[in-house]
């Protein structure tokens, strides 16, 4: 990992966290569709990042979001969760042995279909974990499920579009 990659990761972490905290925190549709775009920081880490580094980055990002959401530990826990699971998901999506460290996580590197599948799967895992942990019980199962489904759709779309947009900004 060279300095340039580290700077890139730091920049993306700052941009996504600020977006999350100042804009998307206030953007909730029909009281059910939330948008947690900060997981992009973890989703789009280079695939060669060691899992332990990814875990630490996820933890720090999660805690930052937590401070603004008044939920100590909740987002950090969910973020650490997907940072850990990411490696396995990549292995499942790209079954050929050893290749998962060389995948470029982007539309060009993966193909649109697989890229979207990757985003949706991880977003779904993150949101399911987050909302059930936040509710603390399975009592409002339907209500929580509705929140999860609506939020996964909303977040995935925003994550995909933002990624494409930021990429085009960088290239131009």
């Amino acid at each position: 990992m060279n300095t340039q990659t580290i700077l890139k990761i730091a920049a993306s972490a700052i941009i996504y966290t600020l977006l999350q905290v100042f804009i998307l925190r206030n953007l909730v549709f029909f009281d059910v569709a939330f948008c947690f775009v900060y997981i992009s920081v973890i989703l789009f880490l280079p695939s060669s990042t060691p899992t332990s580094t990814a875990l630490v980055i996820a933890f720090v990002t999660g805690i930052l979001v937590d401070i603004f959401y008044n939920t100590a530990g909740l987002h950090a826990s969910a973020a650490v969760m997907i940072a850990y699971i990411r490696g396995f998901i990549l292995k499942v999506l790209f079954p050929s042995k050893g290749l998962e460290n060389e995948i470029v996580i982007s539309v060009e590197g993966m193909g649109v279909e697989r890229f979207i599948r990757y985003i949706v799967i991880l977003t779904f895992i993150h949101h399911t974990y987050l909302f059930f942990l936040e509710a603390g019980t399975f009592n409002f199962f339907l209500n929580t499920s509705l929140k999860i489904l609506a939020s996964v759709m909303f977040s995935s779309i925003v994550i995909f579009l933002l990624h494409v947009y930021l990429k085009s900004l960088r290239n131009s």
Partner: protein
Amino acid sequence: MTQLFGILYKSRHFFLFLALQIICFYLMSKNNVYWDVSFFNTTNNVVARSLEVSQKANEFVGLGKVNEQLASENAALRKQLTDLQEMNPGIPGYKQDSVMARRFDYTVAKVVGSTHNLTDNFITIDKGIDDGVRAGMGVISPQGVVGQVAYANKNYSRVYSILHSRQMVSAEVLNQKLRENGTVALGIAKWDGTNPHYVRLNTVDRFKPVAKGDSVVTSLQNPIFPPHVMIGKINEVSNTTSEAFHNITVRLSADFSSLIYVYVVKNKLIESQQEAETNPGVK
């Protein structure tokens, strides 16, 4: 031994994952401990400052709404004034002494951050200990009850919104029939955690006549809020024959997504009242 270390080294990612998760769960479970409350939430000065900036932008856009709120507040006050002027002591023999009548003090505070669609919701306001705000005081808005102060530091406080799983408000129902009968229908207003526009009103005796559209206000029997502050209007009443209480849903009158100014209520006699209620000398 080398093999053991080999295994440990191989699963180092898993152990780091486990350690971080344990930290997270520790933070979640200790959310009420002092150091945590003062650092990991929006009362943290840096965080509160930045939230204030973003709130200022919202404020500018919402100036029209603020005007509207202030105007309706003025109207309500004017009405209260005339009510007071025309009120004659209704109950012969009872005299409200002036200390009791003036026991409530109000502090106007600005909302700098709030949530209303989580399971446990909080509001951050820009008044703290320096302005006389203490934990436990009630918070109301021009439209109705908002919640109770959870924690106050020098300049900011964090308020349990009524949309919090552990927040309850002593309430009563107002209508013509109850007034004629000379009874009160007391209950406890509590959020059930689903829709941020509705709360439930529990433990209202099912033989009390209550109906859809009746006002639900804070009761006389609570030391935190002034009596008869609006909570909301009854949206639905249902009961099965076997239950002792009505099943009541109340539509909140305060809109938690657009709170801008709130009033922190200080009851100057609360210590005296609590002392009388819990004096250890009386068994």
